[in-house]
């Protein structure tokens, strides 16, 4: 097992990130440990769920997209070129499958609305989409301020920060890349989206966020 580890991230005692653990899990799986992916599935499913949901996929379909992403990982386990980038691979795969699901759903709805009985006399109700998740469940004032402030960011920034919050901080860079928002210069680990959010939060008043 030692030989294969050489290709894995070199950690300096600061602990492994989710991206690192994903790489190790895939490598061990390739080496024949069929149980190696269990912990990764537990840990990264929330990230995949929110990635898929951010593409506008409703709940039922999102569950299937997440499942099929994990199945795809197993099926491609031997051919993923860079185990180190497996977290990004998972996010990109989930995102593409989500787009495909949205496209098919739209095509289906279009086909249905084109049925002859869909006339003004017999309007056909399309199934209601899941209501957008809202902030009603957030009881804490700072949580609500944070959520409202997040909504003021561009959509892709919102998506990025929701995902980054669920991963380990050093995975920020991988997640940004998966979302198609590279972080730019090496020196800026915070990234524009988070800086922007902090600015908006500061405008909301004198809350301590620490």
């Amino acid at each position: 097992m030692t030989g294969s580890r050489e290709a894995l991230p070199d950690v300096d005692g600061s602990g492994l990130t989710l991206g690192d653990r994903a790489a190790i899990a895939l490598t061990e799986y390739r080496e024949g440990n069929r149980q190696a992916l269990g912990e990764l599935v537990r840990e990264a499913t929330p990230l995949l769920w929110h990635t898929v949901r951010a593409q506008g996929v409703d709940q039922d379909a999102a569950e299937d997209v997440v499942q099929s992403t994990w199945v795809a990982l197993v099926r491609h386990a031997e051919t993923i070129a860079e185990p180190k980038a497996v977290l990004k691979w998972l996010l990109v795969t989930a995102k593409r499958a989500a787009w495909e699901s949205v496209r098919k759903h739209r095509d289906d709805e279009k086909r249905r609305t084109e049925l002859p009985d869909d006339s003004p006399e017999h309007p056909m109700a399309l199934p209601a989409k899941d209501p957008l998740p809202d902030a009603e469940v957030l009881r804490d004032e700072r949580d609500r301020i944070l959520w409202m402030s997040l909504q003021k960011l561009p959509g892709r920034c919102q998506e990025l920060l929701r995902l980054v919050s669920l991963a380990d901080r050093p995975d920020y860079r991988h997640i940004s890349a998966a979302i198609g928002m590279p972080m730019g210069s090496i020196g800026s680990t915070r990234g524009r989206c988070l800086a922007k959010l902090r600015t908006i939060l500061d405008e909301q008043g004198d809350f301590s966020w620490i």
Partner: protein
Amino acid sequence: MDLTPESNQDDEAVGDLSFDPKGALDAGDGAVLTRLARAVEAVDPVPDDLVERSLFAITLAGLEADLMEAVYLDTPLAGVRGAAAAARADDTAPAEAKTITFTHDSLTVMISLSPAAGGRVRIDGWAAPAAGLDVELHRPGVDVVTVASDEDGRFAFDSVERGRASLVVRRTDGGGGAVSTPVIEL
């Protein structure tokens, strides 16, 4: 690509803020992200058994069956799983039959789930185009049960324990590849 929506000018005006927008993550960033993670989970929680279903789906991946896609157009309000869970939570309620359709390039399978004695489930299925099919019912920790369809593509499992399950469908003449449904909650 410019990701800031309206004005960028205020990027220059943040000098008097307590953090450096170009700098490394600070403690405040960490706290904001931690709080955001909690909010994300509260607002749109990951479905309870999605991890377990994914883990079971992984164990079935070795069957080399193409994944079918579930069609949810006919379940506008309560999702299929939500309805099943609700029925489970209240066994005294007269649970209605639930129908789920699965599609793949070559095959459409429709299943109807209805309550059976002892809190179990009856699965009635129908596949199109009609052909002789072997239908396997896979569940975690239980032996696979296989039934054959009739020539119209109809098949049934009379009494199945509730829980995670996936159907794998193969043509008896060996034509076409095997297909499997996503793991669903019966």
